[in-house]
């Protein structure tokens, strides 16, 4: 491994670190501390909002796992990845201005604040907080393991050292700067992700002798590589379409995404973010996955899918450009874990501690507690990631689909269906998580669709049936 590659990575890590630290100087104290620390005072502009949504959503799988799968399966996997275009506009359009306005009326800082005010039920709050803490904690640990392994593979330092460098820099700026540091660094990380995509795609097309040449070589090797069905014809239209639920519209139910829909400054910011977000997410997904397919012609015979991107970057690019490309997956991992870390910490402080343990806690104490809990959560993830326990790996399997199935209906129908009540929300949370775990373990990809589809349908049924029982309906017109 040479310094050409490492230098851009080091510069990237250091600049993210200092920008994160710098933003922490804006943290206000006093009555607005929680709003400021967990929501940046609802002041996000369009560009930052778009970037933080895309970067939080885009993880290591967009840059490492996804292109690796595209390398093996061909254009069919790029088609599947393009189901994610819809995330660029759908979440903001559906939660919309109503979510932002309601959040202001009830002074909500977290997603659970919204659910608490809407359903007025202790059980909704407790079940939501448990799902967020348990699933996102394990998801975060998995991402940190990914981040550590990435640094390890690029630089050759040991895994523990890599993990320390990686998590150390993220932890410091998240603890000190809160949401503002998270979103500003997300914006930088998003830009790095876009630049990395442009470079690797251009480099691979040039190395492969142009798109026409690449396509004819792919067709000569295995014609199925250029069909929508995948090299082994495993990608059925139904299976690929079901990803529109998992990585498309279902993303509305991910708490780390939906909390961003209450953080923007005004309608103009939301409008701009939808345009920028759609373009950026489409560009990254199309570019990175295409580069994976094209890489098959440039560098045939890679057995381990996760090695495709790193090897390809080192093959087709000069060292320093490869370094910039390899900063992209690192940026994707960092921008996901920083958001999730803050979300887990807000669930503990705002949703559990202030709601049920000490509602009259003093501001100064809340401030210290916020820094403290964020640090404790971060350090425990670090400790877990050094030698991840099996339970954590197991829980992470359910993090993405389980949270979507749990939260999508309590959020969306809570906003748009007046009849929806606490019984419906509780049923939806339990059925969503429970059926996802059950099906994932016993009948994965039932009926040829991704496992997430059925739990989302079942949790909808549970929400509607539950809401027809007698229960509290909102008695104000806030909702």
């Amino acid at each position: 491994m040479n310094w050409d590659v490492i230098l851009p990575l080091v510069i990237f890590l250091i600049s993210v670190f200092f920008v994160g630290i710098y933003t922490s100087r804006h943290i206000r104290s006093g009555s607005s501390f929680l709003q400021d620390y967990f929501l940046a005072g609802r002041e996000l502009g369009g560009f930052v909002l778009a970037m933080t949504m895309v970067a939080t959503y885009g993880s290591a799988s967009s840059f490492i796992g996804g292109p690796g799968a595209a390398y093996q399966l061909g254009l069919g996997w790029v088609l599947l990845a393009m189901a994610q275009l819809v995330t660029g506009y759908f979440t903001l359009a559906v939660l919309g201005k109503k979510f932002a306005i309601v959040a202001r009326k009830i002074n909500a800082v977290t997603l659970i604040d919204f659910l608490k005010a809407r359903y007025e039920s202790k059980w909704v709050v407790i079940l939501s907080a448990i799902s967020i803490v348990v699933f996102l904690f394990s998801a975060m640990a998995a991402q940190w393991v990914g981040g550590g392994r990435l640094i390890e593979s690029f630089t050759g330092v040991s895994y523990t050292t890599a993990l320390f460098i990686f998590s150390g820099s993220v932890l410091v700026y998240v603890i000190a700067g809160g949401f503002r540091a998270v979103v500003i660094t997300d914006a930088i990380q998003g830009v790095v992700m876009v630049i990395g995509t442009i470079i690797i795609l251009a480099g691979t097309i040039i190395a492969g002798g142009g798109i026409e040449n690449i396509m004819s070589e792919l067709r000569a090797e295995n014609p199925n590589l250029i069909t929508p069905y995948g090299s082994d014809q495993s990608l059925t239209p139904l299976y690929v379409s079901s990803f529109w639920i998992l990585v498309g519209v279902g993303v509305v139910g991910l708490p780390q995404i939906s909390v961003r829909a209450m953080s923007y400054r005004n309608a103009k910011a939301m409008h701009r973010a939808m345009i920028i977000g759609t373009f950026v997410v489409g560009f990254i997904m199309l570019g990175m996955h295409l580069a994976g397919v094209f890489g098959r012609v440039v560098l045939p015979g890679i057995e381990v899918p996760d090695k495709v991107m790193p090897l390809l970057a080192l093959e087709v690019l000069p060292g320093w450009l490869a370094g910039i490309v390899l900063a992209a997956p690192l940026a994707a991992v960092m921008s996901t874990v920083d958001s999730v870390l803050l979300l887990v910490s807000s669930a503990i402080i705002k949703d559990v501690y202030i709601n049920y343990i000490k509602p009259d806690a003093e501001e100064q104490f809340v401030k210290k507690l916020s820094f403290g809990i964020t640090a404790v959560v971060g350090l425990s993830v670090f400790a877990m990631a050094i030698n991840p326990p099996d339970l954590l790996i197991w829980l992470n399997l359910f993090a993405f689909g389980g949270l979507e199935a749990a939260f999508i209906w309590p959020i969306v129908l809570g906003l748009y269906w007046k009849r929806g009540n606490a019984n419906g929300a509780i049923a939806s949370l339990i059925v969503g998580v429970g059926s996802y775990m059950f099906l994932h373990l016993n009948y994965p990809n039932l009926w040829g669709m991704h496992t997430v589809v059925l739990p989302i349908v079942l949790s909808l049924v549970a929400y509607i049936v539950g809401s027809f029982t007698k229960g509290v309906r909102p008695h104000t017109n806030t909702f």
Partner: protein
Amino acid sequence: MKKGTDWRYRVSNREAIMGTVLAILNFIWWYAFAYGLGGRPIKEYTYILGFPSWFFYSCIVGFVVFTILVWIMVKFFFKEVPFELDETNENEEGDVG
């Protein structure tokens, strides 16, 4: 608390429906081109800029078209409403932040 539903929610409801309709159109475009053109035997494939036509229309043109449609939707159909209302002055419009 004033009577009736907040007038801004009607705007928001309409926009949520528009976003959902756009997502459905997006899916139809993506699916129809991918499996309509891509479902034929490989010998009959045509190519545009090097790409098989199914991929070109479904993924590349689809990406460009729907980015433009989002821009049109937001620019011409979405309404700028104030987020923080003075309760006594609630019909005021514009980009109050």
